[in-house]
């Protein structure tokens, strides 16, 4: 088998189905590794990776850092709040300065859509997009699809509903690309104001009724309301949103089949999902987090294989 068709992971849109399957197959091996007594392999001991976060993150950053350390890479962390970015340095300058200290790979989160793609074209390092604004969050989509595959065996023909703030969600867009490439059907569900007008051109179903979406799907991915990205009011109040689009135990138990509940985190308990649902047997939220490390290890491992040391 050949390696990945891409040199950087900037989005799911430009990877192939074969790439995704290769990542999953490699992640299977890493999942076994991280459940061993010694959770570490020496594959990347001559690689240095910089985690550059221009936006807040706990889960993604921790997950990437653990993945890198478990591959024995050297890791440097950088967050915008404590950096020269505040002094007016440009993105390319910042990153090139870091690279001149001999860094091989950059994991970046940035508030501007397309920042990862921009960087991939301009600097000499492998770029992994850890979220660029409202555009893509490829590793989250990969770990979501990987978790569904683990539960249901395959994505082919499965129905996945993505519920919530689709407009501001990079997780939604990456998930749509990823799930469709693997043969799943996707429905987005949320208030009219939070669903982009032309989303159906991506080939997804649209619903504004939570019950309808839940009855249709095998898996429901509940997204967080991203208040930090909403400069205007998209719905009257959080309470009203929770009444109409919040998933509670009552609705879940009244469905005709048992569906799988996912959430990319962080959870706003009581808004998009209630505590008893988040902690129920049907929820695989914590498995998603565990798989996140294995999937990110696979992505970094496969991209590192493309670094030429000759």
């Amino acid at each position, binding site marked *: *088998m*050949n*390696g990945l068709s891409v040199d950087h992971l900037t989005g799911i849109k430009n990877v192939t189905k074969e790439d995704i399957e*290769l990542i999953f*197959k*490699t992640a299977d*091996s890493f999942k*076994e*590794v991280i459940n*061993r*007594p*010694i959770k*570490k*392999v*020496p*594959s*990347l001991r001559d690689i240095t990776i910089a985690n550059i976060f221009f936006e807040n993150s706990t889960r993604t950053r921790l997950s990437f850092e653990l993945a890198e350390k478990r*591959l024995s890479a050297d890791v440097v962390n950088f967050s915008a709040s404590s950096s020269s970015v505040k002094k007016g340095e440009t993105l390319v300058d910042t990153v090139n300065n870091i690279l001149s200290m001999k860094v091989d790979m950059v994991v970046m989160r940035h508030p501007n859509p397309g920042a990862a793609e921009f960087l991939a074209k301009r600097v000499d390092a492998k770029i992994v997009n850890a979220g660029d604004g409202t555009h893509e969050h490829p590793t989250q989509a990969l770990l979501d699809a990987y978790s569904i595959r683990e539960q249901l065996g395959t994505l082919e023909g499965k129905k996945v509903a993505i519920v919530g703030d689709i407009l501001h969600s990079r997780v939604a867009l990456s998930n749509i690309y990823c799930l469709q490439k693997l043969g799943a059907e996707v429905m987005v569900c949320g208030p009219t104001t939070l669903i982009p007008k032309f989303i159906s051109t991506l080939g997804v179903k649209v619903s504004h009724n939570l019950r309808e979406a839940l009855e249709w799907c095998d898996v429901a991915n509940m997204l967080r309301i991203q208040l930090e990205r909403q400069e205007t009011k998209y719905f009257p109040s959080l309470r009203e949103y929770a009444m109409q689009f919040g998933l509670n135990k009552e609705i879940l138990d009244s469905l005709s089949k048992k569906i799988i509940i996912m959430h990319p985190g962080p959870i706003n308990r009581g808004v998009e999902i209630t505590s008893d649902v988040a902690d129920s047997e049907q929820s695989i939220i914590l498995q998603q987090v565990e798989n996140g490390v294995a999937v990110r290890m696979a992505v970094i*491992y*496969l991209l*590192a*294989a493309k*670094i*030429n*040391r*000759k």
Partner: protein
Amino acid sequence: MEKQVILNKRHFELTLNRLCYQLIESHNDFANTVLIGLQPRGVHLVQRLKSQLEEILNKEIVCGNLDITFYRDDFRRREKPVIPSVTNIDFVIEDKNVVLVDDVLFTGRTIRSGLDALLAFGRPKKVELLTLIDRRFRRDLPIQADYIGLSVDTLSTERVSVEWHDVEGEDKVVLFSPD
């Protein structure tokens, strides 16, 4: 490419038998001994040893498979990435006698990686190495086998291939030499 059978079906059988009795000589009833095959080709040898040993001793022999992909030292020096196989060690190796099993011992680099990979599972009491074919005088590292099926003198440009009844249809070892 010139092809030469260096171990035919009959000698293959005899060699496996001898290896089994040599193992029994040093490990008695395998009370504290496990066999671990290196992926991908060592696992076939482990399966054969296991079934023959079980027949002779009339008890279960504990076996596992070890994948060494992530421990290799030639990562990124190859054209294609190495795709991992399955590691399957569902027992504790702490304080056990471990016999690492591979089909061909050549440069010793695979075994070096295998030792690293093995130690991630704990601290064995003793580690030994069994190989069906030893390509002697071709070592890059100071590694020798404790049990050897057949020693052969080869050129580094030659290739030795162990074929299995279950996989290729016949038990034999073939030496490929360039013309």
